[in-house]
């Protein structure tokens, strides 16, 4: 097998979709926040919290589906906290976001240790099992690679369509995009800028949290410290790469995950003598490269980072 043949194995495509899933959720979540004009640097912490909360729910006896909903709920709460600071009090979104990441990740670790003080080896849960779509999964090649995935992976792809539809085809989506581009005009239309921003950030944070939960409830079966490992920051890069467009976010996440799945397999080929650390760097280097490539096209939402205070001109 050589470095090209990898691309023709079903395992590679299955892995691509699996690696892409948390990135799709995270990128969609961040995209919704930024479209409403709020940069959410809390993403890394919120994903950690989602990974812990969803897993803990199941470990304590809940079922998987309600665990996902619980993770989403907790994520939304942290989104609300972000908004109290960044939207209602108008504090710097950078600083607030970093604070939220610190709080959410430290609380995740605290709660985990609190509930499982003596766990030396991380305890496990029964995670989501791959679901073979009847009919489609019997197709040669694509059946095994694309249609025998975790239910959360299908949900992620469906979520792309939902987010796209809501953003571009519904009044709610129009309001979200408006408060991110021109909040004064939105207010003149009778839209409550602060409420729309808060709603968007809560929904976005819920999605991020579900992305984190995928790691502990589907990709793996345990919660590890530091397991998000920069995925949140990569999602922020992917939002820029995708020009704040849900469809392109899906393509970006798949492209990114594909290269990641590919490098893992190249590492194992005989005759490859590059130290493994350089392969592990690939996702981070790729994210930076993606941002450089898209830098000329990046068209940030106009009101991103600008707090809105009623009756005050910015």
């Amino acid at each position: 097998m050589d470095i090209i043949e990898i691309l023709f194995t079903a395992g590679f495509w299955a892995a691509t979709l699996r690696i892409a899933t948390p990135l799709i959720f995270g990128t969609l979540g961040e995209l919704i926040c930024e479209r409403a004009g709020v940069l959410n640097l809390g993403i890394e912490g919120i994903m950690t919290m989602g990974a812990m909360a969803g897993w803990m729910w199941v470990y304590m006896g809940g079922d998987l589906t309600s665990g996902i909903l619980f993770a989403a709920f907790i994520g939304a709460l942290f989104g609300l906290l972000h908004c109290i600071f960044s939207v209602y009090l108008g504090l710097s979104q950078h600083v607030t976001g970093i604070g939220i990441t610190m709080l959410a990740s430290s609380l995740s670790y605290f709660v985990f240790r609190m509930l499982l003080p003596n766990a030396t080896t991380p305890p496990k849960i029964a995670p989501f099992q791959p679901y073979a779509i009847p009919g489609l999964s019997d197709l040669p090649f694509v059946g095994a690679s694309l249609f025998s995935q975790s239910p959360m992976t299908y949900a992620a792809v469906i979520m792309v369509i939902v987010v796209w539809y809501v953003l571009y085809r519904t009044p709610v989506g129009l309001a979200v995009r408006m408060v991110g581009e021109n909040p004064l005009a939105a207010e003149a239309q009778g839209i409550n800028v602060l409420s729309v921003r808060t709603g968007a950030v809560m929904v976005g944070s819920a999605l991020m949290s579900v992305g984190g939960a995928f790691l502990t409830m589907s990709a793996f079966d345990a919660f590890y410290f530091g397991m998000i490992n920069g995925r949140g920051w990569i999602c922020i890069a992917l939002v820029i790469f995708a020009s704040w467009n849900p469809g392109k976010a899906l393509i970006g996440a798949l492209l990114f995950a594909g290269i990641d799945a590919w490098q893992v397999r190249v590492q194992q080929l005989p005759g490859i003598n590059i130290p493994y650390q350089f392969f592990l760097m690939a996702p981070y280097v790729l994210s930076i490269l993606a941002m450089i490539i898209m830098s000329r096209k990046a068209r940030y939402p106009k009101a991103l980072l600008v707090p809105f205070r009623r009756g005050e001109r910015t």
Partner: protein
Amino acid sequence: MIRLEPRENAPVWLTLSAPLSAIIAAFIICSTLILWAGESPLQAYALLFKGAAGSRFALTETLTRATPLILTGLAAAIAFKAKLWNIGGEGQFYAGALMATWVGTGAITLPTYVMIPFLIVMGALAGGLLLLIPTVLKNRLKVDEVVTTLLLNFIMLLFVNYLLEGPMKDPMSMGWPQAASIIDEGVLPSIMAKSRVHLGLVVALVAAVLAWVIMRFTVWGYEIRAVGYNAAAAAFAGLNVNRTILLTALLSGGLAGIAGVSEVAGTKGYLTLDLSPGFGYAGIAVAMLAALHPLAVILSALFLSGIFVGADSMSRALNVPTYISDVIVATSVLAVLVSLMLTRYRLRWG
């Protein structure tokens, strides 16, 4: 509804008491977690304080831990002042430590009084140059530096990991991934008998005072503040914004790099992958608690270090996970942010 109304001017007592009351509020909020753990918050905080400052040993440990935090805190404070969002302190810390290891483990031998300044300058250069990459990308191509500096942290840590398992691995380390020791001439001497407090603390304190002087009294500091306050207006006034941001980056990255030198040549003696338990990230919290004021960074670094050291010893005695320290720090940061805003705005109901 709540409205925010700008204050004409904030009284001095308010500006000073706001952060203090915020920190007290943070402690009260976090006591709910201690209650949940089934312990008494008063006892926990008393033990925490005792662990941080209750004995000579505790105090010197707090000072040792505060040394890198002062430097990474200054790095964040100066960059944030220019609205250069340098979240890459951790990577710059390792760049400095790496450079000190590269030139300080036998490649160059100089008399002590030249060797130590040499290591510091080289480490500062390494940290500054690492931050220069995302800064140039920001200036030239408008690439968001928050993400690039963050991602560079992960890249740097993997690079150090590679070096420690490969080219830089000490053959005498019995298989542990660690580099050779810094030569005796380069080791920062202890400044307090029977403690780990070393010359790095003096370096950090001098750096804080220098940073304050630069920010407060020099044209350069004025330019940094002007760019941070309103880059467009600064450019209109004829200021070279890009150049100011580049210099800020060198200064900020350099300070984080010196923190790395101080840890590798002062506290530990050789480079390992766990040299920093997140000093770079904690530096951001230090800067935010200090409201980006260089002298307040010293107090804020001591506060954080005290929390970390104290929580370690408190969690050994009580059934409270040591992660309580990070929760207290994060809560304090958010509370101080709100309190500082309330010194500028008034809350009005209706």
